[in-house]
């Protein structure tokens, strides 16, 4: 299985305050998908990732998909199949945008 990295041309930053709020909302059983917890600047355009997207993004520093799901499973209380499917869909989307590098 190939390792995956973020495209190094993409400038990004974690929004710490938004992430903390989203984590608190998740703990309370609320909706944590609203505000961006990671901001990215790609070719002059700004984008944002929600909590799950942001956590995946931060882990993409040379990791394979299975290990990525294992790590996320420690934070997100969802069944493994659902998590794997969400991660796969997200990676496909990032890849389609050219935001990933495969080793």
């Amino acid at each position, binding site marked *: 299985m190939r390792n995956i990295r973020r495209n190094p041309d993409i*400038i*990004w*930053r974690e*929004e*710490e*305050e*938004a992430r903390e709020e989203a984590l608190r909302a998740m703990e309370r059983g609320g909706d944590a998908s*609203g*505000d*961006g917890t990671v*901001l990215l*600047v790609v*070719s*002059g355009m*700004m*984008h*944002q990732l929600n909590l799950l997207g942001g956590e995946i993004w931060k882990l993409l520093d040379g990791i394979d998909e299975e290990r990525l799901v294992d790590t996320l499973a420690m934070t997100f209380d969802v069944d493994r199949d659902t998590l794997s499917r969400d991660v796969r869909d997200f990676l496909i989307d990032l890849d389609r945008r050219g935001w990933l590098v495969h080793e």
Partner: protein
Amino acid sequence: MSRIPFSPITINWTLTFRCNFNCRHCYSRPEKAPELPTEQVKEIMAKVAKYKVPFINYGGGEPLLRSDLFELTEYATGLGFNVSMNTNGFLLTQEKAALAKKSGFKTVGISIDSTRPEVHDDFRNTKGSHKKAVNAAKFLKKQGVRLTISSVICRINHTELEDLVRQARDLGAEQISLHNYKCAGMGFTNKDELDLTPEEWKEFYLSAIALRENATDIRISMDDPITATIHKAPDQAIVKGSTCGKLSLNIRANGDVTPCGFIPVVIGNLLTDDLKDLWDNSNILEKMRNKKPKEKCLTCKHYEDCLGGCTARAYATTGDFNSPDPHCWVAK
């Protein structure tokens, strides 16, 4: 997005108000402020870096007049900033282009306002400035520095959009930034001569948006919130309305902080104030982030998308952040 990022994404930094040009539209020409020495600029850079601001862009004033420009850039790059600048290019020799690359500049923007040298030279009040700007662009490309061409859209060039884009493309620019005319500084003094009418702005932006949608080999950037009235921003837009004070701040030559270069309202000074404290607690920024519709904006269906348009233009012409943008073409 609904919330403001925890600190600015971009710091626009006027390292100096000095300039070798005397342009007819210049916002900063009437500005005067003592210039900080190298070590104090570095001190502020380190303070800003603490809050993970990803981008610094030097404007001003001509950045290349600072003899420590490349030393500062190397320092800023070492702190993790992505550094860029806007320059008129007149002083940008082959040697300076090499230093730009070596010191870590991610992008350099060269100002070229017309494809006709005599028009550009007249606007910039400097003979030979078009030729020098074109040469500067070529030097940067040769050194492998990413190039942007910046054009201030006004009376002299609003009908030559396609030529401006072609010129930028031919020079190898990744982006052309179409800066809207600001009635600040000399821009205010000369607005009757140089600014467009609201209808002309609408016509220009309709053409520019159409051109942008078909451009595959160059990015066409036009950061003007008023375009939201004719072209809805993508759903993932981080903020609506002016980005000043929401995504960016401006630092002047003496360390003073203003919401943007075109709004001369000082909210603090980074020699003594903390960036995060200003960002979170400035009353001025709070007012800019929570504008209230006035006059024709009160009943306008576009208000929730444009938030009154450019706050700097409204402030420059009326002294009120909440006034409608004077460029707005939407009827009452």
